[in-house]
Structure formats: C-alpha cells, structure tokens
C-alpha cells in the first residue's frame, strides 16, 4: 500500500516548510518513526519521522524547495512490519552497500557486520542510537559484544574513542572555525544572513539613543532576585523590567508596534499595518547562532509574568529546545546588548517590525541632579533603530522619552 507523506505543520502558525535534506534514498527501507527528511522553517530545523514502515518509492520535491504544509513530498510503499526483511524485500536487496563501510576505521580492525546502517539501527537500544548520533558513529561498522552480536552502548563509546573526529556537518552551527577554510553557509546561519540583508536593504534605518537612570529599578530587582529565583528557578535580571516599560510605551505609541506592509498580491495595496498584539522578541546570541524567541501578549503580563516567560524562553534557547511557535509572531524586539558590556549599539531591525531597542551596560556614574547636587547613579543607555518608512523621528524620540520616563519611575519598591 502506498502512503503519501505531506509537508508537516511544524507549529501552529507555520504555513510552509523547506526540504533541507533527504536523509534516505528512494528504495531505502524505513521504519515507522525513523527520520527520513530534515525540514526547516524560519529558524527551526526538524527531522520528520515516517508515519509507516515500508520502502521509499519516490521523493516528490527536490532538496531546497519550499512548499506549503500539506503538499505531498514523498511516497512510501507500506509493508506489514513482519515482512521487512532483507531477504524478502527486493528493494532492500538491491540497495547498494554503503561505500563508507570499508573506509571506516573499525572495518580495518575487522569489526564489520553485514547490513546497511539502517538495518543495524533496528534493534539498537535508545542509548546506542543516541550515542551513535552524538559521536557520529556508523553502528553497522561495529561488531557488537552483546548478546547475539548486539552492539552495546559501550561498543559505541569504544568505537568513538578510536574513530577520528569528523568535521562538523554544519546545518546550523559553524563547527570549529579552522583558519584558511570556508565554512559552508547552511541552516540558521544562511537564514540569518538573508534576513539581515533583507531588513537592512528594505527598511531605511534611523537611530537614536537616550540615557536612563535605572538606580531604583536596579534596587527593586536586587531586592526581589533571591526570592524570585527560589520560587521560579530563574534568575531575575533587569530585562523583564525593561520589557514591561517597553510594552507600556508601545501602548502609548501604537505606531511603534506596527510594520511596513509592501503591496500584497491580493489587494495590491501598501500601507502601515498596526499590530493587534504586543509580542516582544528577545534577541539571544548563542555561540554560533542568533534566535529571537517571542514573549506573546507581553502587554497582558506583569513584570513577574514577563520574567517567567522570558526565563523559560532563554532556558529553552540555551538547550536548543525552542519550537517554531516560540519564534513566531514578534511585533517588536528587545536586545539586552549590555549583558556583554556594550555601551551603545545600532541594531538591525527584525524584518517586519517598526523598531528594535537595546539595553546597554548599566554603569555607575556621577550625575548632576535637578537640585545641582552630584549623586552616583546607575545609568543605562537605551538605543533604538526604527524603520523610517513607518515612523519619523518625531514619534520615535517621543517614544524613547516615554520609555526613559517609565524606566526611571520604576522602583525602588513595588509588587512584581
């Protein structure tokens, strides 16, 4: 029985996906739940499992092609699980033996089993599968020391200790940068590059900066942080306080929570679309990647609510566990650039938004107060890049002044 596989919907609001890489060839045998294709959406790459056991008859689209969810992408000839044996299935019998088997170091030690990698993984324990993936070990090239020649987790680890390190394949990471070599552009890196060029070209960026006195907000945060961490497990930074001030300012200046809409194919009309929701993207720099998970409906959340939501997102980002939905729907972006000591920066707008603000480093400075005294205060620069097609300096500077006023009014006490 032939089963048609369609492009899965990887997240509630995802409408299309790109076939990044086929993990199998037509004619390959495939187990139910075995991954056969890597699909990428905006920033998430996912391996998609087969819903049936059988043999792959055909792939319907080429690697790199983007199609709408629900579009047929592959056909699998389904077979009863019991008959999937190498001797019974002509497709499996005619499948070429993997060329890499003979060149694998384990082969030279005579540790070679027959069978394709796929067949070797059948019956492999979860630990063997995980370790083989982590260490990029071909299980079919290992002779098992377990019962009936089963490859054990210890066998995989032993093989990994003798196998040479392979270069990282680099779907979403740089791998180890090696001087004098080209790192192929792939996965998230490619998408980031394209998005940045697109935004910087399409949206005329203007830039502005204010300096805010966050002494009281800082005191408030310092007093609450231990209780907060004990209660929630997340560290309390100034970020949720800042986001709260930003969403309040966005409420006062709805044009900052908007996007420039190019002429659409249906209506042909360009314009400024003012967003209904206030969803704040948080730019998070990882070693080789940049992700912007979104705190949804941030205007409906207290500082504590924002702190928990952003804590969860940052935690998931660091563990590489963000879902497609986590990354969707942002209407404005906040970048905590000061965490690494930056004093001022000119950020690039996340395409499809009117602006982005940064929190720069908090620095203790002598300040002349209103009554001409000199005081030591915690000062922080706030930088804004805006899409000049959407708003002008008049709105933007009033937005920034409003944000500064709100930040300075926060603390030193209150309920989170």
């Amino acid at each position, binding site marked *: 029985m032939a089963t048609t596989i369609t492009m899965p919907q990887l997240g509630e609001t995802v409408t299309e996906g790109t076939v990044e890489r086929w993990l199998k060839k037509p004619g390959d045998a495939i187990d139910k739940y075995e991954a056969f294709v890597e699909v990428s959406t905006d920033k998430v790459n996912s391996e998609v499992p087969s819903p049936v056991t059988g043999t792959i008859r055909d792939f319907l689209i080429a690697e790199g092609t983007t199609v709408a969810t629900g579009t047929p992408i592959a056909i699998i000839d389904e077979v009863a699980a019991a008959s999937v044996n190498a001797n019974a299935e002509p497709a499996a019998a005619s499948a070429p033996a993997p060329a890499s088997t003979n060149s694998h170091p384990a082969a030279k030690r005579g540790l070679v089993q027959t069978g394709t990698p796929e067949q070797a993984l059948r019956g492999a*324990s*979860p*630990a*063997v*599968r*995980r370790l083989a993936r982590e260490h990029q070990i071909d299980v079919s090239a290992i002779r098992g020391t*377990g*019962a009936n020649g*089963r490859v*054990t*987790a*210890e066998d995989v680890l032993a093989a990994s200790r003798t196998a040479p390190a392979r270069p990282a394949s680099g779907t979403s990471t740089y791998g180890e940068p090696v001087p004098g070599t080209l790192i192929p552009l792939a996965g998230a890196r490619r998408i980031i590059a394209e998005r940045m060029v697109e935004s910087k070209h399409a949206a005329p960026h203007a830039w502005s900066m204010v300096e805010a006195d966050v002494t009281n907000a800082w005191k408030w945060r310092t007093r609450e942080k231990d209780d907060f961490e004990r209660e929630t497990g997340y560290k309390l930074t100034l970020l949720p306080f800042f986001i709260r001030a930003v969403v309040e300012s966005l409420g006062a200046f709805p044009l900052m929570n908007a996007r420039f809409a190019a002429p659409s194919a249906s209506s042909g009309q360009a314009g400024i679309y003012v967003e209904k929701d206030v969803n704040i993207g948080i730019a998070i720099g990882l070693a080789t990647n940049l992700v912007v998970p979104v705190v949804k409906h941030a205007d409906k959340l207290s500082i504590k609510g924002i702190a928990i939501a952003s804590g969860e997102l940052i935690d998931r980002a660091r563990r590489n566990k963000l879902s497609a939905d986590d990354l969707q729907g942002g209407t404005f972006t906040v970048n905590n650039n000061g965490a690494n000591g930056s004093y001022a920066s000119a950020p690039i707008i996340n395409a499809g938004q009117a602006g982005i603000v940064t929190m720069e480093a908090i620095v203790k400075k002598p300040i002349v107060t209103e009554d001409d005294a000199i005081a030591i205060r915690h000062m922080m620069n706030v930088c804004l890049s805006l899409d000049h097609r959407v708003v002008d300096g008049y709105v933007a500077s009033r937005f920034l002044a409003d944000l500064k006023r709100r930040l300075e009014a926060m603390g030193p006490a209150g309920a989170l």
Partner: protein
Amino acid sequence: MAVSASSKVMNNVETVRETLYEAMKNDDRTVILGEDVGDRGNVFLITKDFVKEFGPERVIDTPIAEASIVGIAVGMAMEGLRPIAEIQFADFIYPAFNQIVGEAAKTRYRSNGEYTCPLVIRTPYGGGVRGALSHSVSIEALFYHVPGLKIVAPAFPADVKGLLNAAIDDPDPVLFLEHKKTYRLIKGEVPGGHYTIPLGKADVKKAGTQLTVVSYGLYVHWALEAANQLETEGISVEVVDLRSIRPMDRGTILESVRKTRKLLIVHEDNKFGGVGAEISAMVAEEALFDLDAPIRRHCAPDVPAMGYALPLEEEYMSSPGEMAEAMREMARF
C-alpha cells in the same frame, strides 16, 4: 546524624524494640496501640514489658479490630498525641484500608493544613517464613498509589532506627513496613543516640558500573549476595536500596541508571502494578535515551498468595541464585 552513644550490633527486631522504647521514654505524647502489644508484649516480643513501665494508657491492647486501631490512632494524632499503631501482620490491614487511605492520608489536605496526622502504622510483612496465605503478604503496592501517605520499608538495622525515628517525627502518616524474615536474620551495627534518616532517600548499598538493581526489604540482602557473587565473575552491579517507597527517590535511581544504562528491579510483591511498575515507567520517561537494554522486573508471579507448601513458597519467592542469573542475563545483553 548526632551520635551521642557508641554503636552496637543488633538485629532488626531488637532495633525496632529499642527505637520504640526510646520514643516512649523521650516523649509522653507517644502511644502504642494494637493487638497483643500490652501484656503479651507483641507477637515478636517487640513491646515486652512496655506496659509495666509506661502503663496501659500508653500501651493499649486493642480488640481484633484493625479499622478501630487505625481510626482511634487518627483521632489521637489529630488531637496532639503521637500514636504508633501496630497491625499485627500486614495480611490483616485490609479492614483499616478506609481509615488509612480515606482518613489519615487526607487529613492535612481536607482541613486545609489546620490538622495534620502524625501517625505511624507499623506492620510486619513479607514471606519466606512458611507463613502461608495470611502471614506472608506484601501490601506496599496497595498503598503506594495514595498521595498523602508515606511508605518506608528498611532492610538494615541502622536504617530501621533512623527511618523509624523520622517516621515518628514526621507530621504526616507513615506506613512503616518491617520484613519479618529480616527480623532476626539481619544483624548490623546501629549507631547509638537519637538520629533520623530522611524519608524519601534511597541508599546505594553497593556501587557498580554495569547494571543497576533497585530493591527494598529482604530482597536487598539477596540482591547484594548475588551482586557480590557476580563481582567474582567480573560483572559490576550497583545495588540501590530504596528504603522509602513513597516518596520515591527518583534522583538516586536515575543517577545510577544513567551511569550503568541497565535497570533490573527485584521485589517480592507481585509484578503487575507493583512498585517496579512505577520505577520502570519513571525511568522510561526520564532516561529512555540512556537505556542500553529493556528494563526488567524480577518479581513474584501473579498468583493470589504465597502457598504454604515449601515448593509453592519457593516458587513464589526469588532467591540469590535466581537474582544472580537475571543479573548475568542483563549484563550479557
């Protein structure tokens, strides 16, 4: 653990007796009640002469009415006493099921924290003593489903003392299971003075690298015997003594399984729905990708009871030899 007096070697039943005696002496609120705990001094002589020293108001002989024993103890506990109720054999606990599950376990929740139920229910359980149908059962699986109830099943004298003290101190009901075959069989060093061992903490009784065995009660001793035999064969087995069945120490189990990648659970209770079912489900949920072999449960067959005839009892019970064979198979896998 504050040890003020020197340690001494005792068996499990002597340790229970001495720990109860200290509890009676140190706190006037402590009351012992149960069948034959007074003049008879308990069927294992655990409370022998207690009634002479502490009087019949604190060492109470009850009728053969288990629901009343626990029901009265629940009332005592809610009103400020520290009752230690005894069910003479675990096989007789069923009439008290409603009092334990329906009343004691829910007191704190039902009263929104206004009342607690600092009650210990002690009972000898388990087989291998030719106890036949009504002196051999394991009852832990019937109770461990119940939130609000703590269940302890120590194997070693030092653990008996520390956990019984912790159970008596605990503000909520604790079911304290004493394996009757270990009563006089198992001797060990017991620290002097008052000390407690936290409820809900397992103990690695033997460290190993190739296989984790989780057990409790009598079977911990047999598992250790088997594991020591396997050590001479070059197979390294880690033995985790659960000690507390609920709260269950997930952390210690997971840490061990993540190290050895293989899990064998041995218990005397029936396999279906037993404590091993919860452990294997938990490990499958939390550590699937660390497992290098299917989880295995080596437990009693699903027959209604342990027979009196020796071949029937032996068929029902495991043995160090059977455990060693199960361990060898898992290690070879």
